[in-house]
């Protein structure tokens, strides 16, 4: 399968701080992927590198085989991007934002943009700054979609939206995915919302990729094991222990099963995606790097 996004030992350093280190991942085309991680994990950095806003310190990143920095003329028309807090020219009317999109993008689909605006009930003669936050997010999304990108990157698109606006935003997104089959990578810390729309998961923590893969497969391979208190070494020799907690009498593990689990001493349970993600994030708690690059105000769900 061809890769929409491919990063190879991708690293970015600001001064002495590594915002992203040795990030290697591949996102197959046609996927809707969630990029999950705590603040400062490097999600924004990864997205900015992918869209060519940043130059890698080391390693490389490719979009459909093109480097967004070295071949911007090939890569940019194929990329759609909505930055965190969906910046827009606030003084532009919606109509003028559409004109901007038309003038700057050869693949621009004006009919699509207008149809979406109409469907969303966003007046074209309203200035962007006077729209509600949810509407601004929608306008930013439509601007990115009307570019007709092959890969759409969204940086915390849901963070500033209320639950209703979130649902509408995701509906617009999923409509577009259903119609065009574009690949989507969206970063978020709200895992429950993403579970319904995403089929691929990338967990980024402490500037490293902790987990990447098909969500269904992740759900199938990750199990919670509950048994009498014991040493985990036996389990760890076969399976990968992500998280272990012990009470006086009982041991609870979250493992990535590398095969069937036969040991009858363990009670095997299904785990929710959220718990899996949190387990991977918890692994790295002490190494989380604070970073001024990410906007404050977004709390990690723990």
């Amino acid at each position: 399968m061809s890769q929409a996004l491919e990063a190879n030992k991708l690293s970015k350093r600001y001064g002495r701080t590594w915002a992203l280190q040795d990030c290697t991942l591949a996102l197959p085309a046609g996927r809707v992927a969630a990029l999950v991680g705590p603040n400062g994990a490097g999600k924004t950095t990864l997205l900015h590198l992918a869209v060519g806003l940043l130059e890698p310190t080391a390693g490389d990143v490719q979009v459909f085989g093109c480097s967004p920095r070295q071949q911007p003329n090939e890569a940019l028309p194929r990329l759609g991007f909505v930055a965190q807090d969906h910046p827009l020219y606030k003084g532009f009317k919606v109509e003028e934002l559409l004109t901007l999109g038309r003038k700057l993008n050869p693949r621009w689909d004006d009919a699509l943009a207008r149809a979406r605006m109409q469907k969303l009930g966003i007046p074209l003669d309203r200035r962007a700054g006077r729209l509600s936050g949810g509407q601004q997010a929608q306008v930013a999304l439509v601007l990115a979609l009307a570019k007709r990108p092959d890969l759409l990157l969204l940086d915390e698109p849901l963070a500033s939206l209320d639950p209703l606006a979130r649902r509408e935003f995701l509906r617009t997104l999923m409509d577009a995915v259903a119609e065009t089959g574009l690949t989507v990578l969206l970063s978020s810390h709200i895992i429950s919302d993403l579970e319904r729309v995403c089929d691929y998961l990338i967990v980024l923590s402490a500037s490293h990729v902790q987990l990447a893969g098909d969500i269904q497969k992740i759900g199938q391979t990750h199990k919670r094991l509950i048994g009498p208190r014991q040493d985990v070494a036996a389990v760890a020799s076969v399976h990968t222990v992500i998280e272990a907690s012990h009470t006086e009498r009982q041991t609870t593990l979250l493992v990535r099963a590398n095969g069937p689990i036969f040991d009858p001493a363990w009670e095997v349970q299904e785990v929710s995606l959220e718990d899996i993600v949190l387990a991977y994030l918890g692994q790295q708690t002490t190494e989380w790097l604070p970073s001024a690059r990410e906007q404050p105000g977004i709390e990690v769900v723990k």
Partner: protein
Amino acid sequence: MTWVVWRQHRSEGLITLGVLAVIAVFLLITGLNMANSIQQSGLSDCLAHAPGSSACGALRQAFENQYGFLLSLGAFLLALPVLLGALVGAPLVAREVEQRTHLLAWTQSITRARWLSVKLALVLSAGLVAAGVMLALLIWWYAPSAQLNGSFSNSRFDTSGPVWLAAALLALALGVFAGTLTRRVVFAIFLTVALFVAIRAPVELLLRPNFEPSITVTWPIGQSGPTLSSQDWRVAAGFIDAQGNTTNKLQCSGNQTLNQCLQANGAQANYITYQPADRFWTFQWIETGIYLAFSLLALGATVWLVRRRLN
């Protein structure tokens, strides 16, 4: 991209146009007044035929009494280029970064190098056109006083030729550079003014009088000095003492005659240092070249910052 730049900067353009219009009306009214006055009083005629006559001197005095204050107001217009740089140049990139709209602009299908070059080309040309209109007005407005005092002296030189345009370009370029460097509009405005003064003041005060070696004439006390054209630039004038030191300050007591005072101060001779009028254009082009060079430097640094450093 042209449309985008126009849409983004049209309000700045309209404001600039408005300011220009207000200044133009003021210059037209007062300028017509001055032009009429210099014709009707006969000053223009006598400057052409007998500039040294005492009648001419009186007319000249009358003109300067009447319009001296007005003409000195013209000095405020010297702030126009730096205002343009601070208010139009500095926010050009800085406001985008501050409001994070560069993330939108740079992820459309055009490269940021193209984004910047179209933006710079349009805004800089519009700024130069505005500066050109202003220059034409100023040359016309100063024309009567230029008949009296020439265009070479420090107060007129800046508003009499291409140096004006180069200064406007320099201010804009420094503004864009400062905005790109600091990424903060307010900070960039201050930095623009500081950079502009830091380049302009030394050029004007230290370099300009020496673009070509100045001519110094000395003559004994009590004799009449050389006849300079009103178009020459008198750089300095004063007295020389026996040791060859120059001064233009005398300490006289009330009952001394001028000659006694000069002797008491040890003055041996008069001197005047000047730049002849025919060097005017050479000086204009040299200074224009200096500002162009700094402008290109600032623009080159801006392009580099936008392409390599900004994110």
